[in-house]
């Protein structure tokens, strides 16, 4: 497993320079706009994209078929990929928070608590996205799974857009009970989000592992 993680980090090394440039660019933009949360969100997303790159590198090299012949189980390979996804998201969130903290100290932008919150929510969204996307990538490969990502991204937007339209047209009336429920849930977001994320991760990992066990290389 350690070897797999090392392999991934070595593969990401060539992205370092681009990341350096992007840090400076977004950092500057964030500083001039006076809002650190912009930078935090961007960074969580940027690191999230690296997970996709790792999958493409492995696919391009046809690595998995080779790795299975090594003293590594199929479970280890899937675990390695999920672990990298979580690690990269976590690093992204920490990076974003550190920047926000720096902005807070130097320029008094946003509160620290607010920054932790926005980084945490960003990470949760990324992990949720991958929980849905990774079984598809495991089954179809990054290239073919692209359409699925599009759907994963677009469906929530489309639903919200449609609901919004219906409400505006007066066809859909939101009952007070529903608003109350949302307000009630909002108070417990700190518990609900981690539970949902963990649950999604668990289900996603089980599905991916099952797909991987039956996959041909």
């Amino acid at each position: 497993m350690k070897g797999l993680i090392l392999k991934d980090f070595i593969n990401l090394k060539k992205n370092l320079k681009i990341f350096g440039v992007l840090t400076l660019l977004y950092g500057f933009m964030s500083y001039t706009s006076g809002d650190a949360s912009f930078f935090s969100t961007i960074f969580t997303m940027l690191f999230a994209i690296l997970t996709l790159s790792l999958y493409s590198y492995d696919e391009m090299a046809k690595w998995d078929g080779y790795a299975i012949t090594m003293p590594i189980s199929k479970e280890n390979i899937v675990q390695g990929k999920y672990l990298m996804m979580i690690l990269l998201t976590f690093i992204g969130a920490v990076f974003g928070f550190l920047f926000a903290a720096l902005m807070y100290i130097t320029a008094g932008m946003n509160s620290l608590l607010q920054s932790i919150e926005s980084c945490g929510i960003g990470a949760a969204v990324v992990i949720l996205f991958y929980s849905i996307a990774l079984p598809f990538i495991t089954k179809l490969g990054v290239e073919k799974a692209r359409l699925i990502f599009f759907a994963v991204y677009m469906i929530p937007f489309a639903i919200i857009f449609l609901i919004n339209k219906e409400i505006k047209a007066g066809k859909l009336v939101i009952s007070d009970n529903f608003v109350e429920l949302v307000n009630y849930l909002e108070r417990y977001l700190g518990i609900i989000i981690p539970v949902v994320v963990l649950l999604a991760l668990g289900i996603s990992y089980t599905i991916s592992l099952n797909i991987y066990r039956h996959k041909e290389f």
Partner: protein
Amino acid sequence: MSDIISLNDQYKMKSGRSDTSNEVRENVFTDCKDAIVIKNLRKSYKDFTLNNISFNVPRGTIMGFVGENGAGKTTTIKAILDLIRIDGGEISILGSNARMLSNEMKAQIGVVFDGSNLHDNMNSKNINYVMKNIYPNWEEQIFNRYIKKLQLPEKKIIKEYSRGMKMKLSIAIALSHHSKLLILDEATSGLDPMVREEILDIFLEFIQNEENTILLSSHIISDIEKIADYVTFIHQGNIIFSESKDDLIYRHGVLHCRREDVAVIDSNFIVGIRENSFGAEVLIRNKDDFKRRYHQFNVEKTSIEEIMLLVSRGKERF
């Protein structure tokens, strides 16, 4: 121009024959432990089927696995390595079920595929670092020695490697963790003769240890002829023969004769015939018996390549 005819499409090389050399071979098989045993392996695709194939790779030998492109070599090797789901049959490696190999067992198998399967932006130093953390029995010194011996650059990334260099690197990896079994799929194909020679020498060096075994698939028969102890010939998803190379060459012979002479020969002796405007070339089995019976013909030595060619074309014809 040439026309190949087989008069006997039942080319029974594996079982049910009574010539003495075959009996000896059977004994050798049962006496020594096999590194790989494949029994009735079945795998169907839309346009291709591995048809209940069976063969053994005796421990301490080099098994050449030959057949034309698309004959089923890679599919068989993938099945051995548990990279595909099989429809039926059993495969064991070093005495264990190939589908349930422990990591300790897998660490003793070196695999080289056609192509490098390594990431483009890594160099040999990175590879050493990764493999050190994957193989519990990884030997950094041996790896570095191979890198030097095979003149592989330490800092160049794999993207800039030639095909030959990629294959050499894969072979260096396969040999740097005390492998007992090497499984190589087309490891010498597409390489220039110098590199091929170099790689074949490494295989011969590896096999000096009597515990070590190699399964080498190739469609370059001259390589197999050079180093293999046994030859397994696969054709259209069927194993045509799996035997000692020397036995094969010893038992078969080619005779050059006039076309009308062919009718005189007992068809049980004939494996295949190639006819041309000058006469006929006939591949004969049980050469010694044939010579005793037909003094008038001069039987010449044959090669694995010729045997394969006449057997496979003959089979297609009938």
